[in-house]
Every structure is written in structure tokens, then in C-alpha cells.
């Protein structure tokens, strides 16, 4: 049954959902897209961030987004440490990528088990005044549970894009993906750049976790639901392109919402991933991927 009210609300929610997906994926666009690191534990770090938000929200009543921002530097430092270990044990000795993947698989399970042992397996939710609030403009509803994460996700995505394109470290991050030898010849240590990039990627997990726990209840294994989706978004957007990741996430969010509304929710995964296949069929490098980059 089609109506303009349904269509408009589906578009609005689709945009908000896309923003949320962008927040989940943008860190991975750095590690997988730029650094060629298959960080399969990325969603697990997001869940870790979500549980940290839950703890401080339930004990001290702090706002989840504030908690996510406060803990972002800690996640950044964790990222530095994890990359250092990964570099020393795998990249430096030229180990097969599969071994690195196994490392991150192990990390994923370790994080999950630590969360289970610390918090149990029950679903947990956070509370904030705006979560239950809804603004209405004519026939369009703006649930703040979706709008606030979207807004924060946009700030994060735009911030990262500006960082990548306008700052020294950002441009160095792009350069290290293109030609790390050339970077070294210019007197820049690519390992240090990669370490910072990985740290930034993990810092985004802290904020993405806050957004996740605002939108839906969490339990330790819920990250597994998003593994396929975040990688698909990064590939669809074009490896290494934060703007591409944002566009891909929006596209997927919109498609999901529209298909759910007008054709039924069980069709939405099929349509969304069909879009991925279609785009890659015509543009194998992804929406904003670099020409000649065949890593996707």
C-alpha cells in the first residue's frame, strides 16, 4: 500500500539508518580500506564500546554519547597497541594475510568472552531523555533514538573526511595505502602512520558503540550480526574512501527502509546485497574507489 506519508517516513528512517551504518563502517574503511588489515574484530570492538556506555550509563546516569567520546582516546591507545602487536608478529615478517585474519578472529572471541564473563548474556539497554522523544513535522516523524545517532555519525564521518583530506596525517594515511615505499623515501615512517590510522579506526568504535546501544539492546554476541554488513559497505563504497563508505551506507540504509516498507522486511537483505553486486559489476572498485585498485 503506497502513500506519501509512508514514502517520506521510509526515506527519513532510511537516511538515519544509513548514518548509523556509516558510523559502524567508517573505522573499517580505514583499516580494511587503507591499511589492508582484515579487522574482523571491528564489530566486537564496537560492542565493547557499547558495553562501556551501558556500565557508565546504568551506574552514573551519564549520557551514552558523552561516554563514547570520553573513551575514544582510550580506544585510540588500544588501537596503537594492537597494531604494534600485529605489525611485529605478522606484517614485519611478511606473514600470510590469513594468519593476520586468525589473529583478529582470536581477538573477536576474546572480547566476546570477556564481555560474557563480565556482563552475562542478558540483553542490556541504556537510558537517556532523548531516546524516547519524537519530533513531528507534518506527516514526518523524527524519532530521536535514530536522529541523534545519525547526527553524531555525520559529524564523525565529515570529521574523518576532513582529517583525511586536509591534515598531514590524513594525507599520509591515504599515501601509505598507495605506496608506502614512496612515503618512506619522503622521510615518513609508514609504520607510525599505520599505527595512528589503526588507533583512529578503533576510536571510532567507541563512538559507534554508543550509537548502537542507543538504537538497540545489546548482548555480547550481537556484533556478529554486522560483520558481513560492515565489510560489504566498505567494499561497496570503495576501499579507502570514507566518503564512499558514507554514500554506500546511506544507499544501503535507504534501500533497506524502502524495501521493508513497500515490499516486506524479508526482502531487504536480498535487495541490499543485490545492489552491492550490481554496483561492483559495473564499477569493481566501488562507488568512490580508486581506478586501478583491484583489492575489492
Amino acid at each position, binding site marked *: *500500500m503506497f502513500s506519501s506519508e509512508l514514502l517520506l517516513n521510509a526515506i527519513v528512517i*532510511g537516511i538515519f539508518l544509513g548514518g548509523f551504518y556509516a558510523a559502524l563502517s567508517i573505522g573499517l574503511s580505514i583499516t580494511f580500506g587503507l591499511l589492508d588489515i582484515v579487522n574482523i574484530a571491528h564489530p566486537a570492538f564496537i560492542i565493547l564500546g557499547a558495553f562501556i556506555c551501558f556500565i557508565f550509563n546504568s551506574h552514573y546516569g551519564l549520557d551514552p554519547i558523552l561516554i563514547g567520546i570520553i573513551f575514544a582516546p582510550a580506544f585510540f591507545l588500544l588501537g596503537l597497541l594492537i597494531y604494534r602487536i600485529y605489525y611485529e608478529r605478522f606484517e614485519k615478517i611478511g606473514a600470510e594475510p590469513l594468519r593476520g585474519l586468525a589473529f583478529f578472529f582470536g581477538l573477536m572471541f576474546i572480547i*566476546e568472552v570477556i564481555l560474557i564473563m563480565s556482563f*552475562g548474556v542478558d540483553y542490556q539497554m541504556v537510558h537517556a531523555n532523548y531516546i524516547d522523544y519524537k519530533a513531528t513535522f507534518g506527516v514526518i516523524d523524527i*524519532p530521536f533514538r535514530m536522529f541523534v545517532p545519525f547526527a553524531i555519525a555525520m559529524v564523525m564521518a565529515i570529521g574523518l573526511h576532513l582529517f583525511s583530506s586536509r591534515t598531514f596525517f590524513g594525507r599520509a594515511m591515504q599515501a601509505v595505502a598507495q605506496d608506502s615505499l614512496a612515503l618512506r623515501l619522503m622521510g615518513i615512517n609508514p609504520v607510525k602512520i599505520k599505527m595512528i590510522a589503526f588507533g583512529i579506526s578503533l576510536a571510532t568504535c567507541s563512538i559507534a558503540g554508543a550509537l548502537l546501544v542507543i*538504537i*538497540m539492546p545489546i548482548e555480547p554476541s550481537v556484533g556478529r550480526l554486522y560483520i558481513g554488513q560492515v565489510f560489504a559497505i566498505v567494499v561497496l563504497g570503495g576501499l579507502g574512501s570514507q566518503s564512499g563508505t558514507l554514500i554506500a551506507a546511506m544507499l544501503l540504509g535507504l534501500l533497506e*527502509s524502502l524495501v521493508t516498507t513497500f515490499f516486506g522486511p*524479508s526482502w531487504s537483505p536480498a535487495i541490499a546485497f543485490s545492489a552491492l553486486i550490481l554496483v561492483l559489476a559495473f564499477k569493481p572498485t566501488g562507488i568512490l574507489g580508486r581506478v586501478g585498485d583491484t583489492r575489492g
Partner: protein
Amino acid sequence: MLGKFALKRRTLALGGIMAATLCLSQVLMPMQARAAEPIKIGFSMALTGPLAGGGKQALVSMEMWEEDINKKGGLLGRPVKLIYYDDQTNPKNVPGIYAKLLDVDKVDFVVSGYGTNLIAPAMPIVIQRELLFMGLFGLNNNKKWKYDKYFQILPAGPDPAVDFSRAWFDTVMSLSPKPKTIAFLAADAEFAKNLKEGAVTHAKRLGLKITYNKNYKPGTPDYTPIIRAINATNPDVIYIASYPNGSAGLTRAVSEVGTKARAFGGGMVGLQFSGIMKGLGPKLNGILNYDFYVPEPNMSLYPGVTDLLARYKIVAPSRKVDPLGYYLAPWSYAYLQVLGDAVNAVGKIDHAAIAKYMHATEFSTVVGKVKFGQNGEWEKGRTLTVQWQNIKKEKDLEQFTKPGIRKIMEPKEFATGTVKPFNSLR
């Protein structure tokens, strides 16, 4: 000479005594060893994954049963030992787990994990090996197989997929005016789809026009588009068969979007879990849903549950499980209770004989009388339909332990309230 003969006689006597002792020990020691050897009951259980909230509380009460039965001398004079593995709420893990339980751990009995989706993959193995199999909260797992050694703890009734929702439909048809249209939504998983199919049977029986009938993918982050799509078809009532994440998401979505439907709920799993109850709080008001045990005054259905849950609540915090245990703890205790009583009554480990006994017997358990009918399902259903009412506080679990929050609508003999239209309670 006489001395040598005497010596030979003593030697012979000593040898005879030693031989007799050796023979006796060969007979007695295995019997003692068998007597000391535990009776092993094996199962998979959702200890991680989306159903772990239920699985872990089930395990706690199963271990309470193990402790209780061992205090009483075990089964057949032997101690009982539970052997289990985490199926991660993933049906693909189940066949391998049961193969290991049977071939490596050499368990004497197997029982199921929690839920339809985790029972189904175990059925071929137990049928092939002709084993007795107790199911925990399975919906229609034996309808296709008609296996005579399957017994199920879910008080749905002889045709579970249909009988599960009967009380819900009896309740909504008591609304005035009677509903004429209905929308259906189910998670894309076996239990939810089976439940929805059964509910559709009732809709057709009662002449309700179906305005929406779709499934959704578990793990959907936002359900507002679905609720809007349902609302666009203007149903009088909405029946949902969902899993915990979906149940919470749909409850939030209907709070945000609203609905004109006069009843909302049905088969929403997870609203009975403490974390979700506490998180949703007043958003639950008005939802009409199934349940099995609620802290209402009329719950004489379950004579042993109060004591069991009091013991469970002491253990729960240290085990990081659902603090209340209302949903599964009584039932997982009961299905082992039934197994244990049957084994002791038959007096030997004979799966066929135990199954025959179980078909013929009415058991007394913590959840009341249990009598199995066709296909190992309950002869008579006892699923409750409850409506959430009077929830006032946010983040307060204690309010859910008091009567008056989940009022029983059906069965009528246990009713503690009358159904009200959904929006009148919000």
C-alpha cells in the same frame, strides 16, 4: 612326611581362598564401579548468542535439579552428572555436539537445548539411535517425525503451533467491538514461522481478514518502517512472533510510531527476560502476550515454583544470569524431573520402556501435573495470555516481581484481569 602334607594342605587352602577372593572381586568390583559411575545426561544449551538469556537460566535450574536428585541418591542408585556444550544459539552446532555427547562422552541420556531451532537439528540423531529425547520449549519439532520417544516441556497443547496462540485469540475476540482484521509479523526463523502459521489458522477459523503477513530478518536494527507498513493496512489487532532483539525493537517502534490496533503482541519471546523488561519499562503497557509463569496470586498451576525461584534468585547474581528466572527456570527443572522420575520408576536404562512409561503416566512436577499426549506434546495446553498493565517506573526490575503487572487474561480459571484496548493502557 605328615608335616609336608600339612604344609601342602595349608598351601592349597590358602590358594583356594585367594582364588575365591579374586573371583568374587571380579564380580563385585564392576558392580561397585557401576554403582559409583554416574548416569550421564547430555545436552547442548544456548550459553551464548541471542537465546543465551534463556539458556543460561535454564542451565542454572538444571544444575539445581542435579544437586537435588543426587541428594536423594541419584537415579537407579547412581549419581547424576550433566554434560553440556554451548551451541551458541546456532543450529549448525547441534548435530556435532550430540554426536560428541553420544560417541565420545558416552552419555546415558540426552535432552534438548532451549528452543525449537536448537531441538530440530538433534532430532535425526536421536531418532536414528532410538533414544528417548526430552525437548525444552520446542514448537512442533515432532510433528513431521512422529517419533514415539520424544517428549516436550512446553505447555502449548496437543497441536503446539495452533494451541500456543489459542488463548491469545480467545482474549482478543472478547474485545468490544470484535476485531475484524489482523496483521501478522514473524521473525524469519523456525519457531516464529511455525507460531505464525498456527496463529493464521485461528485467524481463518474466526473469520479475521489478514491485512499484512510478512517475515523479518532477525537482527534488523530498526523496526519503525515495519510498524508503519503494518499500520498502513489498518489492522484491528497485530500478532507478532519474534525473538528477544526483535521483541524489544518492535516494542520500541510501536511506542514511537503508535498504532490504532486494539491488541498488539502474541508470541513475542524475550519480553519475559529481566533485562528487556527493565529496559522497556512502561513501553510494555498494553502488550498482550503469551507467558508461562507470572507472579500473580492465582498461579496455583505451579505448586513448586515459588520455592524453586527463591533458590534460583540466590544463585543467579553470581552466575550472571537472569535475576528472576521466571521464564525458563521452572520448565528446565521440570523436564529433568520428568526424566528422572521415569527412569527411577522403570528401574533400568531402557529407552523404549521409559518412553512407554512416560506415555502412560501423569507426572507431578514443580510446574504442576504433566501428561503427554500425541507426539509427546502436552495432552492439555496451559499457555497463559497476559496483558502488561500498570508499569509506572523506568529501570525498575522490582516492580515486575509484584502482582498486577502481568495480568492473566486466559485461561479463564486463572484470570486476574480483563483485557483492555492497547492504547487505553499507554
